[in-house]
């Protein structure tokens, strides 16, 4: 066991920090608080990701033959940490490089790869994820948006909800029902958002401008060639995507950064002297570092080529605990952080409260841990 970063890893992190310092605009923190899905940040992300691509820093963790540099999962982790700590200047494009791209590479047709990958690797694409529906959140298999085969096309009708980035995305990674079988009856279509019959409504939210939407599909015509993989293969493909997404956002890193920032502010105000505030801060730090190490243990297994299973749920839940505790610390000791004066901390709070909900609710992670890590017999259904 060696818990030190290698020289190469240190250098990679420094290179990212230098790049961020040289590239991000002066007013970045105030600007970024509107959230990764805001029009302003989405627009800026095209510039930023283009520069990242020029530097070879957009998809360095992809294999060489698909436009990456084949860097190992430690480098991918360092990249994700530095971007997320910086307020995710890649905006919604982080999804592209974390899981949309890899999923297309694994399951896409040659035509799909040719159509979509260059925009992703060039930093110009923005995808949205058409998963949740009004009647199915954690229970994805109950989704009802219907894609009916009609010759060479599908006709899609139904509704998605909580869809991040939908207002500005160019393409939707749409999960829909092609037969009545619960899990084997769902398929994925790659649908341009300007297809007639798609309507997007933004939902006013607690978590940032333009972040969540309803998307209505009214007899939307999608060619069969836009299907990713086979009919009924969605469950498998999503499983692959989620495994990547679960490790995609190193929330522990931003939580720890926000905690350190909060402590620095409290110190400057002379409010970090009492035992109570110091103890609470330490508890939050312990959970951040526990989540970091649990996540690193998964990264290490990926480096060794081992299958990543339920243990990623354990790391995910550890991260939820850390985010929660940091949010609580800041609410209690630095309440002004949720106001205008501290955009970075406000940004953290808005993103932090999502930790237990996005990408598989915390309760689902606990179910997985119980069944697949602790090997407890399953609940009756």
């Amino acid at each position, binding site marked *: 066991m060696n818990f030190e970063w290698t020289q190469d890893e240190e250098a990679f992190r420094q290179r990212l920090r230098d790049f961020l310092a040289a590239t991000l605009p002066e007013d970045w923190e105030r600007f970024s608080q509107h959230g990764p899905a805001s029009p302003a940040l989405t627009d800026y992300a095209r510039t930023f990701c283009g520069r990242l691509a020029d530097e070879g820093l957009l998809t360095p963790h992809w294999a060489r033959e698909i436009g990456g540099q084949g860097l190992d999962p430690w480098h991918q982790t360092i990249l994700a940490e530095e971007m997320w700590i910086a307020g995710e200047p890649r905006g919604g494009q982080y999804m592209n490089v974390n899981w949309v791209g890899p999923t297309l590479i694994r399951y896409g047709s040659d035509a799909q790869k040719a159509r979509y990958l260059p925009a992703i690797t060039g930093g110009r694409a923005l995808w949205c994820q058409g998963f949740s529906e009004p009647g*199915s959140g954690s229970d994805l298999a109950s989704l009802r948006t219907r894609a009916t085969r009609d010759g060479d096309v599908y006709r899609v009708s139904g509704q998605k909800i909580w869809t991040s980035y939908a207002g500005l995305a160019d393409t939707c990674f749409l999960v829909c029902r092609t037969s009545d079988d619960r899990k084997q009856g769902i398929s994925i279509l790659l649908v341009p958002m300007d297809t007639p019959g798609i309507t997007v409504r933004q939902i006013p939210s*607690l978590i940032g401008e333009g*972040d969540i939407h309803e998307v209505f599909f009214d007899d939307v015509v999608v060619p069969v060639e836009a299907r990713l993989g086979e009919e009924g293969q969605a469950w498998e493909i999503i499983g692959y995507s989620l495994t990547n997404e679960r490790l995609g956002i190193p929330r522990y890193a931003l939580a720890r950064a926000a905690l350190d920032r909060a402590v620095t502010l409290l110190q400057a105000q002379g409010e970090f002297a009492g035992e109570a505030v110091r103890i609470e801060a330490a508890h939050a730090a312990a959970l951040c570092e526990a989540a970091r190490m649990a996540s690193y243990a998964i990264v290490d297994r990926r480096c060794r080529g081992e299958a990543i299973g339920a243990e990623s749920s354990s790391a995910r839940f550890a991260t939820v605990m850390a985010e929660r505790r940091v949010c*609580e610390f800041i609410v209690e000791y*630095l309440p002004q952080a*949720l106001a205008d004066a501290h955009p970075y901390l406000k940004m953290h709070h808005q993103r932090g409260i999502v930790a237990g*909900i996005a990408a598989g609710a915390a309760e689902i992670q606990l179910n997985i841990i119980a069944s697949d890590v602790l090997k407890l017999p399953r609940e009756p259904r």
Partner: protein
Amino acid sequence: MNLSLTDDQIAILDAIDTLTRPYAGATLHEAGFALTSEALDRDLAEGGFLDIGFDPDLGAISAALVVERLARLPQTVEAAASALIRPLLGDATPRPLCLVEEDKTHRPVRFLAPGATVLLVGPDRVRSFVAGPEHVRAEPEALYAYPMGNLIAQPDDRTDHSVSADDIRTRWRVALAAEAAGLLAAALDSTATYVTDRQQFGRPLATFQALRHRLAEAQVRANGLYWLAMKAASTLDAGDAALAALHAQESARTSVYDFHQFLGAMGMTLEHPLHLWTYRLKALIGDLGGRGGQALAAADALWG
């Protein structure tokens, strides 16, 4: 000991229920993050409901009952400080009454706007002034479901109050606990309704045991908080008040997270009213030093 409401208390709460009924079912579609109502504020003030604490026969306990009940509404009204602390200052004190710790003036203040009374509570002294436009910068984007303002300046001329700062803090804690009790009850109720209606995996969310147990624990906390708050309002004892406020802030912390969690993505929207109660609870968590502050005050009072 007799924990029944008196006839007067029953009559007051009935009158409040009648007065506030039109407000209870507010639709939120056009509401901002901090839902207020000038009409409700005026009706309550004119009905004398915020002055009950001035009446020695009714006292702080009746005022606390009013505060708790009003906190359950989606609309927020500055009631807690007015009902429980204004009686120590005099009924000529303009409302809203904004409580500010003397060394925490850099924090956003609930209900602070021109015309409000700012009460500066220091370790040993209590001063006040009526805020003018030059003292206040509105804070419309703060993530709290109260109207908030920043105190950017203070007049030289502030009124010294010959009340004990400790007494003010005790009543502040009672006010906080009573308000939190109502907020917590309303948030719990709203969450319980949602999970009863919301189906996942072919059954209501509320039938999942893990969620049931966490909501049941919130009920235990809300119930305990109600009684601690009322007891503290009745005794106005420093220890009772600190324990009630501690239980309020700790229960707020543990419950708010769960409530939003159980609403899933719906809990992230402004279309469901839950945030109106939970984000107010968040705003109360940091008062008077947070849980550590209440706990130390309680330890001083209980054990010296």
